[in-house]
């Protein structure tokens, strides 16, 4: 129960915070902290039972076998604590960080709580599909948070890039997950982990590849590593929470979660080791070359994630030893470093490391925090970083050489990366806090409040405390160990092991790293940037651009602006395919039963309908034609009466009435000149011949279809079933109505939803009009009649009054444009989609997305009126 609260309470908070935020303003952060705290406590209450791997299940979609299953084992509880704990700290930090410069605090914390809920759902998920759903939800929350300052282009592009990469890889992961479920027979994680599917063929390798691509995408490994630095456009609390401590660890979590399942695959070790350790080195190099504070930290996160994933990759079959140690160490130092970077950005106003310097005197506490963070990153003694590195090196030296090339590759990567990491940690710390005080600092610096410093101070303190007493940490972490993943026989964590190979190596690395940095600093090789070859994000942006251009090319090639151009294609397809099939299958048997004696009443009605339709063709004048068409419609309802379907007849009558009025209203807006064909180009003779042929073809097709369908027996007996069951099951005697409301109620619900959506779409289209920026800034406008009156509504009417030509349906005070402006209108019209005839210019230079007929014609032909007051009741 408390698990449910822990996961879903932040979701509830996310729902109510936007409304609260408008009233509370910057104080919304405290409400968010409260929610996060409750969630943290809920997860913490699961610690005592973590070793028992409890499962909680609630049925959700039983037919799919999908239930809300949550698995609370050690791994889940550990990650849950990290997520909720960091959540509390981040919201606390955010409450101080987001001061009056920001707006929409409610929205911000709402998204953060949404993210926290989604993240907790992912780590606790006990069903593979549930894992995927929450995985995607974290991606969406991340998108919303990165793009929070959406008026900045870089935020929008960073958000879009993050969403595209994580979603696409997430889809690949879904494919892998579904295949895994099929292979294993179940998608329930507890069962899968207990009995992992064994596969002799290489199929498991393929599944592994698919799932691991998802993990790589989320954790920004090669080749997806470029989205993480671009996600740094987010506000710093977001970066510290999502993109360092929690969301990007999902790939690591997935590898850990599915370790028992995939560990026996041949590809597991090579795939993870090569990609992850390679990314580790790449990330370190990029971090060394970057100049933006957050970019340095982002690349170093990429590098560390590579280490964590590679660690799982190189793990022996019995299980890993100290993964929690490495993960927790990273959370401590990266979280605090990101927060410090945010504070520096807040205090100084820039994130470029070249423009900052000499902050030590002004903010010594901040300097101490960053010192501890950088020391942990570099692995200096006294911090958890040192403990982590010692144990890592120990494992590297003892276990990795057993794997030959892979082992030596991993070893080399780790050593090189450590070297570079020390160098850029030193650069980070030294560059920000020492060196000459720059102008930027002098001009903009204002001291951060203590509340802002508290969360990173806590993290740094934790790093130091556990770094000096690793036994404590070891005992704490031992409660979270999971069978199948962890090798429990690893012994305790100690600080001092004697002068070992590891200690000598790490000392040598520290010296070398500092020397490297000193060398760079001495020779002022500070003006470096990331080489273009490594800028994957530029390649990605270019790729998206090209994709857009390609789609435009295809669309423009296939598309035309006039609806009349599509009709011949559609109709001829219909005739050829459907008619052709009929003729081919039935042959001469098609016309059986035509020559029966017709019933006189029906024959008379049919004759009247034919007469009405012929009148439409022969008569001139739109209103006359429309009325004749409606007559045909009304006569069809007579048929319904004859066939004893009163509901249908009623509906037909009413629909015909309403439609008639609707179209009459539309037609009355057209001046008579339009009716007389002055506004459009007539068809050529060939096109007219085609139109006639198509019409005749459709008529013949319908004739044939009706013949065939009335002759054959219907395939299903649903109609009879409904008639039988309408009274017993639905308690209503009207089968039509019970079908609509009861038997097929879902269809009706869908229909009215579509009706509403269509109406909103039409209204939106009526408003949609290409406006220049100046027009938009001057206020909402539309063509007169569909929007507000134009400010400069000149009276074109008086001089161009058509007098007696005014149509009866338009009141006397609203005149139509006459004479000369018709030419103007005609040229405007001919440049756009024409109603009934082929347009003059097919390839419109500016293709539009508007609805062809109604909106554009009406806007072009709107009668201009005098300045009328805005009539709003």
């Amino acid at each position, binding site marked *: 129960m408390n698990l449910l609260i822990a996961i879903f309470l932040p979701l509830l908070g996310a729902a109510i915070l936007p409304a609260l*935020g408008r009233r509370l303003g*910057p104080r919304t952060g405290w409400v968010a902290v409260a929610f996060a705290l409750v969630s943290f406590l809920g997860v913490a209450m699961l610690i005592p039972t973590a070793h028992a791997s409890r499962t909680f299940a609630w049925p959700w979609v039983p037919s799919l076998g999908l239930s809300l299953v949550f698995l609370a084992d050690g791994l889940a509880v550990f990650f849950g604590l990290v997520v909720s704990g960091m959540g509390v700290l981040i919201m606390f930090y955010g409450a101080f960080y987001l001061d009056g410069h920001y*707006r*929409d605090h409610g929205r911000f914390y709402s998204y953060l709580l949404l993210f926290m809920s989604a993240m907790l759902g992912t780590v606790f998920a006990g069903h593979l599909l549930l894992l995927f759903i929450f995985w995607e939800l974290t991606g969406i929350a991340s998108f919303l948070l990165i793009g929070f300052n959406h*008026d900045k282009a870089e935020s929008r592009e960073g958000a879009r890039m993050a969403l595209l990469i994580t979603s696409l890889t997430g889809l690949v992961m879904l494919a892998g997950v579904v295949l895994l479920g099929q292979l294993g027979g179940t998608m329930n994680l507890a069962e899968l982990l207990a009995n992992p599917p064994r596969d002799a063929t290489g199929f498991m390798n393929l599944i592994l590849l698919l799932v691991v691509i998802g993990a790589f995408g989320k954790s920004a490994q090669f080749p997806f590593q470029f989205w993480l630095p671009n996600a740094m456009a987010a506000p710093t609390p977001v970066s510290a929470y999502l993109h360092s401590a929690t969301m990007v660890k999902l790939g690591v979590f997935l590898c850990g979660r599915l370790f028992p399942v995939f560990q026996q695959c041949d590809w597991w070790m090579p795939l993870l080791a090569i990609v992850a350790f390679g990314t580790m080195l790449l990330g370190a190099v990029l971090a060394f070359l970057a100049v933006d504070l957050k970019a340095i930290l982002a690349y170093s996160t990429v590098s560390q994630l590579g280490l964590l994933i590679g660690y799982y990759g190189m793990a022996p079959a019995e299980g890993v030893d100290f993964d929690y140690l490495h993960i927790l160490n990273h959370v401590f130092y990266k979280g605090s470093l990101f927060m410090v970077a945010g504070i520096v950005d807040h205090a100084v106003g820039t994130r470029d490391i070249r423009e900052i310097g000499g902050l030590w005197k002004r903010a010594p506490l901040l300097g101490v925090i960053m010192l501890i963070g950088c020391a942990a990153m570099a692995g200096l003694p006294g911090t958890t970083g040192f403990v982590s590195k010692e144990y890592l090196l120990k494992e590297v030296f003892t276990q990795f050489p057993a794997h030959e090339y892979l082992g030596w590759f991993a070893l080399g990567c780790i050593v090189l990366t450590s070297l570079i990491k020390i160098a850029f940690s030193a650069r980070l710390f030294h560059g920000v806090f020492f060196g000459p005080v720059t102008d930027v600092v002098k001009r903009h610096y204002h001291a951060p409040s203590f509340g802002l410093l508290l969360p990173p101070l806590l993290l740094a303190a934790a790093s130091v405390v556990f770094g000096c007493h690793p036994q404590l940490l070891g005992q704490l972490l031992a409660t979270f160990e999971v069978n199948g993943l962890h090798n429990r026989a690893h012994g305790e964590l100690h600080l001092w092991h004697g002068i070992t190979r590891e200690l000598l190596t790490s000392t040598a690395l520290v010296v070398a790293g500092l020397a490297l940095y000193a060398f760079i600093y001495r020779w002022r090789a500070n003006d470096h940037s990331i080489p273009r070859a490594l800028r994957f994000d530029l390649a990605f942006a270019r790729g998206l651009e090209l994709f857009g251009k390609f789609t435009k090319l295809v669309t423009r090639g296939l598309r035309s602006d006039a609806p009349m151009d599509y009709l011949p294609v559609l109709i001829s397809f219909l005739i050829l395919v459907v008619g052709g099939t009929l003729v081919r299958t039935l042959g001469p048997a098609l016309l059986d039963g035509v020559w029966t004696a017709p019933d006189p009443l029906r024959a008379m009605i049919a004759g009247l309908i034919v007469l009405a339709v012929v009148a439409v063709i022969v008569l001139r004048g739109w209103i006359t034609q429309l009325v004749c068409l409606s007559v045909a419609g009304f006569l069809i309802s007579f048929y319904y009466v004859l066939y004893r379907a009163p*509901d249908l007849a*009623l*509906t037909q009558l*009413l629909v015909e009435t*309403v439609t008639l*009025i*609707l179209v009459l209203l539309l037609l*009355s*807006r057209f001046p008579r000149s339009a009716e007389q064909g002055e506004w459009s180009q007539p068809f050529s003779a060939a096109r007219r011949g085609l139109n006639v042929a198509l019409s005749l073809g459709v008529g013949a097709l319908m004739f044939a279809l009706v013949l065939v369908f009335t002759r054959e027996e219907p395939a299903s007996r649903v109609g009879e079933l409904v008639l039988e069951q309408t009274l017993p099951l*639905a*308690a*209503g*005697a*009207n089968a*039509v*109505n*019970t079908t*609509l*409301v*009861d038997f097929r*109620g879902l269809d*009706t*619900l869908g229909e*009215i*939803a579509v*009706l*509403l959506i269509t*109406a909103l779409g*039409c*209204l*939106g289209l*009526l*408003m*949609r009009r*290409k*406006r220049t*920026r100046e027009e*938009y*800034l001057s*206020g*909402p406008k*539309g063509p007169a*009649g*569909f929007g*507000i009156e134009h400010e400069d509504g000149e009276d074109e009417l008086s001089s161009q009054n058509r007098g007696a030509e005014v149509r*009866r*349906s*338009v*009141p006397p005070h609203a005149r139509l444009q006459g004479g000369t402006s018709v030419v103007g209108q005609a040229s405007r019209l001919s440049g756009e989609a024409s109603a009934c005839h082929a347009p003059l210019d097919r390839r419109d230079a*500016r293709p539009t*997305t508007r609805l062809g007929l109604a909106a554009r014609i*009406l806007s072009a032909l*709107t009668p201009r009126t005098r300045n009328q007051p805005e*009539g709003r*009741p």
Partner: protein
Amino acid sequence: MIGPRSWIFTTVVRFAFFIINVFAFYLFLRGHNAPGGGFIAGLASAAAMILLSLALGVEALHRLIRVDPVRIAATGLLTAMLSGAAPMIFRHSFLTQFNWHLHGVPVFGELHVGTPLVFDLGVYLVVIGITCKIIFVLAKSTQGLPGLVAEEERRYSSPLESPIESEAGASASSPALGGHQSGVGGEGSVPAEPKEARDAD
């Protein structure tokens, strides 16, 4: 008002409106057991509204019906959805309909009630709302009046300034988004520069 003012027409329509609406209600109630139902009743009511708008003019009709017809339609959809979702609280599946036959009701004797009526009510409201809205907008524009007022226009308009495809490329920033965030509906000028809109709280 479309056409010359006709006193006969106006007077007759006032009565006819009432009668048609009663008939529509009758159709609505009898739908379950005899020809009728939500769609038909909605169309009949809509036809009555149209008649009234033809006789009295759309302005008068707006004074009669103060609420935006699209809101009526949305209420109808919500009603239908809720009537379908309510059984889920009691562990039935979505859109389970219940019918009860009541005996001994004071005036009617026997009464047959059921949840399909609520669903049908939703359908009725949707049809009325949509038809009325479209007819009103078109009728008003036919008479040369603005079809939608400023507030409605903002509600229905897309915040995009530039169309989705344009050769010149979309405009880089959309100030409309900033304006949309800070105040929904009823504000003066829509696009506020992001800097100005920052102190919304």
